[in-house]
């Protein structure tokens, strides 16, 4: 927590001005204004289909803004930016595959180059990335036999192998139990704080993230609100955002429960399964 202050806000990594996303006839959200500094750990929260992944797609250059401007490292986002490490929501890992973890991690470094490439390419870097995420012992294990928690560490290593300045993690906690959630958040925190990496992490449940978060981006009801967790996750702020009465309760451990949120409006249909759980988790 102390180390992060060294990096935070030294320079702006992401800046959105009047940003809108979606389709001309159907904006997912609009009028988004926020900026994220280097080294910040940001949770992206919000209900089912609110457009959290859409924000990631804009940053990855896979979608274009509907309006406004989005700046990433001082320029417009572009596809294949090597400064971004990305862990998507879904990885189609076949339970029968014998391919070992090291091979997947290596692809994060050279998979986008043409040609066949050398046999030993990226091996040293892949071992280093696996060491950083504490998964060295998994290097030669088949992907098909790894548990959800082990796979998440492998995917994180795949994202880190290119030494990114920005990590985009789309629901990395979705398939983890409470203990592993907490361990994984701590792991990300350790990895990024020592390197000044900025993290945007989409989650359903803010509680495991509370100890490490610098900021929250809340996507709901066609709008984006950002600020410190204590500012955004208040009864007043969420009531204003949704336009219906919402109550934010805290227990004696500081954990948050959001009460009174109706089924949120659906702007598009992506990732229903996880986001359904998001909505439930937020209400729970």
């Amino acid at each position, binding site marked *: 927590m102390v180390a992060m202050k060294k990096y935070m806000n030294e320079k702006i990594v992401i800046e959105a001005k009047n940003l809108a996303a979606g389709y001309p006839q159907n904006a997912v959200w609009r009028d988004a204004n926020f900026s994220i500094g280097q080294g910040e750990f940001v949770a992206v929260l919000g209900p089912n289909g609110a457009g959290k992944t859409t924000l990631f797609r804009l940053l990855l250059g896979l979608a274009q803004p509907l309006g406004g401007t989005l700046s990433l490292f001082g320029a417009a986002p572009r596809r294949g930016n090597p400064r971004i490490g990305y862990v*998507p929501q879904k990885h*189609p890992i076949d339970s029968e595959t014998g391919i070992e973890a090291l*091979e997947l991690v290596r692809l*994060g470094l050279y998979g*986008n180059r043409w040609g066949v490439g050398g046999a030993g390419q990226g091996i040293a870097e892949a071992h280093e990335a696996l060491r950083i995420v504490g998964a060295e012992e998994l290097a*030669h294990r088949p992907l098909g036999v790894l548990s959800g928690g082990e796979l998440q560490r492998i995917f994180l290593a795949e*994202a880190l192998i290119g030494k990114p300045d920005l990590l985009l993690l789309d629901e990395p906690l979705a398939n983890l139990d409470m203990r592993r959630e907490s361990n994984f958040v701590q792991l990300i925190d350790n990895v990024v704080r020592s390197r000044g990496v900025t993290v945007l992490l989409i989650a359903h449940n803010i509680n495991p993230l509370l100890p490490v978060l610098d900021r929250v981006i809340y996507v709901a009801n066609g709008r984006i609100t950002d600020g410190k967790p204590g500012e955004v996750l208040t009864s007043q702020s969420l009531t204003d955002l949704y336009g219906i009465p919402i109550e934010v309760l805290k227990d004696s451990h500081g954990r948050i429960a959001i009460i009174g949120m109706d089924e949120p409006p659906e702007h598009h249909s992506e990732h229903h399964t996880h986001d359904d759980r998001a909505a439930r988790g937020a209400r729970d």
Partner: protein
Amino acid sequence: MNTLPIAFSWNIIADLQSMLQYDFMRHAFEAGTIVAIVAGIIGYFIVLRRSSFAAHALSHIGFAGAAGAVLFGINPILGLLVFTSAGGVAIAALGRKAATRDVQIGTVLAFMLGIGVLFISLYAGYATEAYSLLFGEILGISSSDVWVTLIAAVVLLAALAIVYRPLLFTSLDEDVAEAKGISIFWIGVVFMLLVAVATSIAVQVVGVLLIFALMVTPAAVAERLARRPAEGILISVAIALAATWFGLFISFYIPYPVSFFITTATFAVYLVVRVARR
């Protein structure tokens, strides 16, 4: 199919030498070897990408093309290439997830098989042509067929070498590959074209209905056994090659279809590996 006055002697080398004196056996071994290598390599990616049903559909689409070519007196391989290529591009263009759309693909392949049956029925030499397209007729391969097969294989493998790493990346982790700047759409189109060419030449050996034997079964074994993609490709090719050579060798002495022996061999390997690694 072929009953020749040569007996099996247990001296494999001598047996091979004597069977290779026949042009049709030499051509069969040459084409079979080329097809097994290509099918083993492409098949590994088909299994990694879980698009084996799309590959199966392409062979049926190719059947209609080949049957049409036969009807109009054109080389059936040309008909196969044109139809499978068009079908492959169409499947890829329908979307990145199209290759896994079982119901739609199943509907199209049944329709194309029907068109193929119509073309074959309009052609006077119905039984022989239909049989060789559906089940393969490797013992009927000519010297020029071998050349066409070789050229197609060289072009295919050269193209595969160029797209190897992005193809592997999109096969294992599509969303990350896309974020890294790879065009999922174009890789999908190129891959389905490669599958189309591989299917077209493999049909000569095992036919439309048995294409899985060379393109999917060896690769399915390889996927389970290999720790590295290069290993997987080698295992897949080795099984496809061994099965093809075994099928050709046995069928020289036993008058049953080559494709029966090839499919039986690959299935036996698959079964053994599945049971052994439970």
